[in-house]
């Protein structure tokens, strides 16, 4: 008998289960008479924006220069002031010699712009990235403090870790925004990033501590016996080895951070989740949008997992 069961009957069973789930969902949804509007989704990724170009004063159109797709219009005011406006050739709304009033439309320019879903994704990404960097630094310092022989450092680390791990992130975000944000006059972005970094930092600290303690004592002793100081040993010997060991749990923590960052939408930071909610108010397509939002989070976290997997293989050369 095979130790692992991955023959074709099991693959078939997997397909059947997945199809069954899909069909069941489909059946349930069709019963409630939901009208799917998938065609509305793409515009929230990328859309063709149309900007009106207007005349800033009362005046006349003096020259129109066409060059391919864009057209330059020279406008002349009553006080002989000249202004050039560029519009798309097929959206030109004036002719030479025409007199215009201030605010009249000369023509339109069109260009592709990123929609709210992409802007939200961008916010989620930079928010998580900055929070991760701070969390890593904070976690490293706290993790080292927790195994320090100094009582004060150790106690501070324990208090911080226990307070953060014992309270919900959502409440921490509220405290960061409504309490700390008000007292210290911080912007919502600072509060959001700060809360996320503080939250992840506590978990990173425990991971770092475990990683350092997993390195055999002999490594520290060997380095110290060669005359290296504690900090030299930490930097050259212990942390590089510990880092390799903690890479999987650490990356899991950062992937969690990307997902947890969706909670900052409650303090009106327009991240991916908040963008999704805003779009739903104008499209009335909650099913589609939430599925798309979930898929985007999944895409980001899968990509991160792949990067970490690649790094693990690179670091494994000395094994």
């Amino acid at each position, binding site marked *: 008998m095979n130790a692992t069961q991955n023959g074709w009957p099991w693959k078939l069973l997997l397909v059947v289960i997945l199809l069954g789930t899909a069909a069941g969902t489909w059946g349930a949804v069709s019963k409630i008479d939901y009208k799917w509007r998938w065609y509305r989704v793409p515009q929230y990724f990328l859309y063709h924006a149309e900007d009106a170009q207007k005349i800033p004063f009362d005046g006349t159109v003096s020259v129109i220069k066409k060059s391919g797709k864009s057209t330059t219009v020279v406008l002349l005011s009553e006080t002989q002031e000249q202004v050039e406006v560029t519009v798309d050739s097929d959206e030109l709304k004036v002719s030479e010699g025409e007199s215009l009033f201030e605010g009249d439309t000369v023509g339109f320019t069109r260009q592709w712009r990123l929609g709210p879903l992409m802007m939200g994704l961008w916010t989620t990404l930079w928010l998580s990235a900055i929070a991760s960097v701070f969390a890593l630094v904070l976690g490293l310092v706290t993790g080292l403090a927790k195994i320090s022989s100094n009582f004060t450092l150790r106690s501070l680390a324990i208090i911080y870790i226990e307070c953060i791990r014992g309270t919900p992130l959502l409440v921490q975000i509220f405290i960061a925004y409504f309490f700390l944000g008000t007292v210290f006059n911080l912007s919502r972005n600072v509060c959001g990033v700060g809360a996320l970094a503080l939250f992840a930092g506590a978990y990173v600290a425990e991971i770092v501590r475990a990683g350092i303690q997993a390195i*055999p004592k*002999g*490594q520290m*002793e*060997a*380095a*110290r*016996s*060669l*005359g*290296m*100081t504690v900090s*030299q040993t930490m930097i*050259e*010997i212990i942390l*590089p*080895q510990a880092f*390799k060991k903690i890479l999987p749990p650490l990356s899991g923590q950062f992937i969690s951070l990307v997902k947890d960052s969706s909670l900052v939408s409650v303090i009106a930071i327009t991240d991916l989740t908040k963008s999704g909610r805003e779009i739903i108010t104008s499209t009335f397509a909650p099913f589609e949008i939430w599925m798309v939002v979930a898929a985007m989070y999944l895409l980001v976290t899968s990509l991160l997992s792949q990067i970490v997997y690649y790094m693990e293989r690179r670091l494994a*050369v*000395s*094994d």
Partner: protein
Amino acid sequence: MIKAKDVVKVFHSHGMTIRAVDGVSTEVEKGEVVVVIGPSGSGKSTFLRCINGLDMFDEGHVIIDGVDLADKKTNINKVRAEVGMVFQQFNLFPHKTVLENLTLAQRKVRKRDKKTADEKSRMLLAKVGIPEKADQYPSRLSGGQQQRVAIARALAMDPKVMLFDEPTSALDPEMVGEVLDVMKQLAREGMTMIVVTHEMGFAREVADRVIFMDEGKVVEVGTPEHFFTNPQEERAKLFLKQVL
């Protein structure tokens, strides 16, 4: 060269107090090879670790080249740079190549430039008989080769004295010889050595003096001939009967 005076090291565990090293005094001259033997748990490894401060002793003095480790003003890192140590479990740095294992402390502690450190390292690797392994990672080496790298790593610091803590105990029997050969060569070259070992053959052949320890105390001291042929103390006789 090295002077230990009434060294006491106490461990506390589960409410019990264990005097692992209990008033050990000895002197080691320059160029002398001292072998410390004794049953396991006799405190010989702990005593060795007190000599370079890996275990800080509770009472007494260890004076290396005139510097007292018990003195609070002593920079322990400076002393350790002069005292090489070889461990039972090799303790090579697994994330660094063999060459990097040898050059790291030379560059960080001795502040040698890369070229000097590399040359010194390659010379030492040739001396311990594995010049071709310089760019390998330790995990690719056999136990005997790893221990020889560890010896070379300690030698790279140009130590005044070398401490060996059961250097062959973790080795497969067929690799013991190659490590002992390197140690014998060192002894012939006049290196001051303190060796904790269970290799009685090595003690008999190389030692200038044998120290027998039991229950944290020095029980008997003597030349190898004296100790192996005509021990005075009962415990020493019993021990020899068991191991020889």
